[in-house]
């Protein structure tokens, strides 16, 4: 019988291989896990536990007098009263907030994608000697404070600011436009300006890896520039498009500051603003926790998708 004898030997070979490669030559079993232990404990206490507290508050009760939240840590005592009340608001008076958050995020990420793709494509294909410089300029917003970048636009968009001066000089408008007085277009501009660098980088990563000979052969086989783009470049950059879109939309959904700084008007309130306002108002603990949970529920699928796809690219490398 060849089979039973072959199987154990293969298994023992694998075991020997694993012992050789993963535990070095003579590292004890506990050696490497102990390196990770401090950070694991840190995450459990300061990441998992806080999130559990959020759930316990959302499904907890409220002090009848002070309206302060009374978290309930035992799942079997959870009540859906507070959470249900907030959910009712989400589908009731606050449903416009959710609807226009989706609108803003959709429009802003679409602009980010189209613009970012063109830029990433140019730098990857035609950057040439200037690629390093272009890349450095493109990533500079990463370490320039988001606040600084919003502040810059506030300065420009002020009633007597340079944007209005310029438009009046061109006779496009005859009176200063109140850009900062609750305009969706200004909020979308801020979102695009704030998050587009996060779109460009993953796109650049994937476009830069495309072998030029693939494009040449696409053209050699009679493809027009358009069909080569749509049948070679675009499919090859699809992972970059997905990664970029997710990485841009995730923070946009949690964004409250762009809106607060560039508009500040209830007309453009976004999901993040609901959380932030609940934080600034006393007695809204359960409401705030419920908003956080709802936000997580909205984002969990794209987040998991993103993490799985990045894990796969890392493994494929």
């Amino acid at each position, binding site marked *: 019988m060849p089979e039973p004898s072959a199987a154990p030997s293969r298994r023992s070979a694998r075991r020997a291989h694993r012992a050789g490669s*993963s535990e070095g*030559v*003579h590292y004890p079993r506990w050696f*490497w*896990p102990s*390196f*990770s*232990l*401090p*950070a694991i404990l*840190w*995450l459990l206490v*300061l*990441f998992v*536990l*806080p*999130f559990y*507290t959020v759930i316990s*508050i959302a499904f907890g009760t409220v002090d009848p007098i002070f309206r302060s939240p009374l*978290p309930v840590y035992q799942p079997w005592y959870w009540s859906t009263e507070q959470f249900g009340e907030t959910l009712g608001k989400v589908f009731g008076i606050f449903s416009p907030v959710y609807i226009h958050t989706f609108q803003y995020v959709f429009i802003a990420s679409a602009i980010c994608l189209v*613009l970012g793709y063109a*830029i990433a494509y*140019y730098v990857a294909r*035609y950057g040439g000697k200037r690629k*390093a410089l*272009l890349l450095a*300029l493109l990533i500079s917003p990463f*370490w*320039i*404070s988001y*606040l*600084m*970048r*919003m*502040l*810059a636009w506030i*300065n*420009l968009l002020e*009633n*007597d600011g340079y944007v209005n001066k310029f438009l009046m000089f061109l006779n496009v408008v005859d009176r200063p436009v109140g850009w900062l007085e609750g305009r969706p277009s200004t909020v979308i501009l801020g979102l695009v300006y704030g998050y587009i660098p996060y779109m460009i*980088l993953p796109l650049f990563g994937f476009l830069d890896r495309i072998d030029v000979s693939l494009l*040449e052969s696409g053209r*050699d*086989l*009679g493809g027009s*520039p358009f069909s080569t783009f749509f049948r070679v470049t675009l499919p090859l950059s699809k992972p970059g498009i997905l990664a970029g879109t997710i990485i841009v939309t*995730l923070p946009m959904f*949690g*964004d409250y*500051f762009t809106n*607060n*700084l560039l508009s*500040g008007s209830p007309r453009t309130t976004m999901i993040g603003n609901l959380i932030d306002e609940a*934080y600034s108002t006393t007695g809204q603990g359960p409401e*705030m*926790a419920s908003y*956080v949970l709802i*936000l997580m529920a909205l984002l969990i699928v794209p987040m998991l998708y*993103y*993490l799985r796809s990045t894990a796969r690219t890392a493994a494929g490398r």
Partner: protein
Amino acid sequence: MTQETIVRADRSAPPTSVGVRRGLFRRDPWRKPRILAAITWGYLAWSLLPLVIAIAISFNSSRSNSLLHGFSLQWWWSDPTESLWHDPELHAALFQSLRLSLFTVAIAVPLGVAFALGIDRWHSRPAKGFNFLMLLSFVLPEIVLGISLFLVFQHLLTFVRLGTTAQILGLVTYQLAYPVIIVRARLLTIGREYEEAASDLGAPPRQSIRRVLLPLLYPAIFASAAIVFADSLDDFVTVRYLSGPATSEPLSVKIYNFTRAEPTPAVNAAATFLLVTTTIAVVLGYLAYRHATRGQRTGGVSEFANV
């Protein structure tokens, strides 16, 4: 032309014949992409010009933060009550910013490096799970983490008072993933050979880590220290939710509050200060990275950018 002949022609043609076959194309495929170039350079101008103006406004000689009237240092230094240096609130916030960032680097980088090393060699299901948890903390919208930590310090871990301690704990949690990602990428590039060689030559585990692996990880450590420092200096979401008394608010939070109230060019000076400090940190990190990887094949800026 049938499919068959195209394939055959292509197979027999050497790669240099691309130029000869160019006549087949309707347009020159290697022409300069003027539209794309215009978009890229236009984007860069749109992205950087507002910052230049904002920096210029920090040197404004009037109270206006939208129009430039002349050069002065009054918002940086000279004004005895309202300048960045002499406004007591901004002055204190400046040092609070530096304090928070330095402590965050000092805690997050060692924790993250050790975690990355352990996870990289500890092949098991829990290792994958914890790594996943770490990455989840990285992609989560920051407001979720900030509010969760605020609530846990309010209700469960009540011995942590809101303020500097809570802020550092929060920042470390948010920044922990940077060193992990950077170090794991570096571990992937350097492979296991050096370490195996060290232990084949008789080095005990501790020595092969300290004298072989650690020096090889220096570039990743420098890069992550720079990024964590810059990012915690700019952070205002987590830090704002975890700040206690007004004295614990760092510069970023002050900028946020002042901008919403009645900003003077001193706010621009504060923001410019953050910009200069983070730029210095990133440049130093990049130089240290370059120095530590000298003689090794790396992608230069693009690799530093991708980490």
